[in-house]
């Protein structure tokens, strides 16, 4: 199929891109040139000290990121239990496979060029530097195995993320500077190469803890059992005001509450509210126009991430939905309401944050919100008809690695979603004022709102023609 080939090429381009990025950033960091502000004045004088100061945070972020994104091997163990292989071999096989995860490889791709650059530029001792590298990579692998254990205990990661935010805040307001301690700890791995034994020892310990953990938990009723939460009925009575839509919206709210994958997607969508800040702080590099790009995500994050997976959220019971007394228009309208609700909340959250930076940003946020409401919401739903990836509601892994979710048609649709408003802004603000540029985007969105009926007709038609292939795609087991 053309689609899957495209997805494969896309995935490989992604891998090559990130590898090159890791290597490139490693080199640049090694020279001490600031990425955000590449002026000579901002050059970091001692990159090696700088990295040691920041490593503590790097590892902390790594652990949280791994928790969210990295697949763990437990699921695959089940099928191997009945094969004529020794249990310990099965476990080691599954655990060792994580050694080649992108997270570990990227760290190495970054560290090696970094070390080579700092070595060539400064007066560091090569042997000591090698030992330092071994220590750091050992710690990277400790986080790798920690992740496997942490995955079984959700609350731990939230505590961890909370502490991380607290540390950052304390440092931001100058209460405590953790970089000082970070520097002392990690520089000592360079100064005293013998200390490499500590991370190596810890690594061995975590590795064997993971193995032992599985060794004794390797029965489907203990370690491999999926935790079952006690169920409680949720009626979400406030949704009744949505009339006919209420019954569908209620289920979507239950979905978000009860499915890990849906919950994380929704949270991620809300997290996007802050996305605009990146473009705001880095305006010198990206320029003003890219602000619009950021603000579209700030207000539409939930709509893009969550509604982008309509109808995949219903993939596990799509045949049921198709046989019930449900009109397409009601079904799609309820999803559209949900998306609009998301845009509304995100805009509401974002406007005070960005209004802090000035009236222009406030107007830009509102206008981007309107554009999302009036145009992007339809386009996202429409794209959904072509996104035939099955969503496993019960596991949150694979949330990013779903290559099927990228197909040429959905990718093409990002042009009107993202490129058009940015270009409109660029052109209008060039000839008039930036503010007018925002209004132009807002007007486009407002006009879109009035075209709901004919647009929905078109979307429904697409859903109908795609129905059979969607059904058969959802039937496929991965």
């Amino acid at each position: 199929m053309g689609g899957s080939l495209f997805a494969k090429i896309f995935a490989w381009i992604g891998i090559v891109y990130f590898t090159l990025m890791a290597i490139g950033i490693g080199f640049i960091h090694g020279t001490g040139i600031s990425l955000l502000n590449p002026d000579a004045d901002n050059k970091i004088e001692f990159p090696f000290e700088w990295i040691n100061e920041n490593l503590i945070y790097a590892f902390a972020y790594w652990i949280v990121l791994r928790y969210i994104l990295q697949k763990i091997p437990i699921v695959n163990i089940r099928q191997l239990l009945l094969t004529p292989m020794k249990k310990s071999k099965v476990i080691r096989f599954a655990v060792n496979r994580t050694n080649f995860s992108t997270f570990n490889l990227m760290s190495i791709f970054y560290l090696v060029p970094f070390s080579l650059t700092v070595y060539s530029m400064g007066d560091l001792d090569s042997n000591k530097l090698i030992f330092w590298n071994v220590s750091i990579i050992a710690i990277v692998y400790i986080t790798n195995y920690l992740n496997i254990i942490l995955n079984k205990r959700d609350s731990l990661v939230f505590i961890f993320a909370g502490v991380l935010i607290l540390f950052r805040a304390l440092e931001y307001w100058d209460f405590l500077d953790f970089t000082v301690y970070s520097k002392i700890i990690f520089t000592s791995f360079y100064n005293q190469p013998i200390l490499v034994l500590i991370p190596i020892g810890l690594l061995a310990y975590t590795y064997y803890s993971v193995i032992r953990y599985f060794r004794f938990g390797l029965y489907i009723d203990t370690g491999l059992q999926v935790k079952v939460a006690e169920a409680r009925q949720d009626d979400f009575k406030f949704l009744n005001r949505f009339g006919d839509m209420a019954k569908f919206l209620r289920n979507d709210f239950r979905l978000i509450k009860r499915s890990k994958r849906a919950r994380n997607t929704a949270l991620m969508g809300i997290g996007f509210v802050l996305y605009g800040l990146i473009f705001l702080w880095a305006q010198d590099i990206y320029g003003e126009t890219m602000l619009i790009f950021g603000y579209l995500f700030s207000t539409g994050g939930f709509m893009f991430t969550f509604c982008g997976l309509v109808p995949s959220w219903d993939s596990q019971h799509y045949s049921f939905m198709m046989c019930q007394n449900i009109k397409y228009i009601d079904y799609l309208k309820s999803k559209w309401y949900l998306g609009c609700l998301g845009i509304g909340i995100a805009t509401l959250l974002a406007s005070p944050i960005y209004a802090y930076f000035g009236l222009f940003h406030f107007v830009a946020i509102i206008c981007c919100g309107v554009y999302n409401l009036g145009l992007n919401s339809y386009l996202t739903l429409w794209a959904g008809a072509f996104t035939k990836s099955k969503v496993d509601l019960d596991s949150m892994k694979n949330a990013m690695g779903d290559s099927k979710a990228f197909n040429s048609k959905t990718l093409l649709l990002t042009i009107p979603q993202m490129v058009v408003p940015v270009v409109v802004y660029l052109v209008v603000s060039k000839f008039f004022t930036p503010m007018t540029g925002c209004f132009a985007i807002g007007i486009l969105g407002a006009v879109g709102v009035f075209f709901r009926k004919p647009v929905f007709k078109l979307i429904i038609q697409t859903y109908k023609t795609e129905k059979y292939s969607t059904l058969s795609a959802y039937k496929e087991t991965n």
Partner: protein
Amino acid sequence: MIKFNNISKTYSKQTVLDVESLEIQPGQAFGLVGNNGAGKTTLFSTLLDLIKPSTGEVLNNDINVRTSEDWKSFTSAFLDESFLIGYLMPEEYFYFVGELRNFSKKQVDDFLTDFEDLFNNEILGGKKYIRDLSKGNQKKVGIVAALIGDPKVIVLDEPFANLDPTTQIRLKKIIKNLSKKEDVTVLVSSHDLQDVTEVSDRIVLLEKGLIIKDIKKTTKTLKDLESYFTKE
């Protein structure tokens, strides 16, 4: 009346279903038997417009299932676990189906009292989502939900498989009672010849997508069918 006109389904040269003509009268208890891959599920799927047939059309009470959605208001089905919404509790699922079929909460509650025996205290008032129920209990939920809201056409694919003996007997009773109603058409498929002969008054035998036998049930139907399958 349900009419299959010249329905066939071909996947890359392999024909899995080829039914020239099949008519099912209202009120009939229709049984479908056959080995794996005989085309039973495919036939039901074309009736529910879940599969696009390669040729022909299906009429459900004169409504072409592919061009109109009106048949959905009087037709219900349980084919497999993709008819369940795993993250709902059984009650929530029943109420949702009730809402879709214009049944109030109260009506659903009343309706469910008839199934207390079948549920055996394992379904209602529990603290589990459907995804955490056992396979057998999931099936019970799906089948009972398919009966909510007085549907006129009920399609059940392999309803007896995976159920314990007590439940099988109770379910057979329920299906027999349903098909006593004159305007309700029940379509059931099964591997088990005895189950299917017990609940149906007409039996169609499918083999490699073709109708081999189409018989009205008599006392010797079961023998007939058994001898057909032992012959091979």
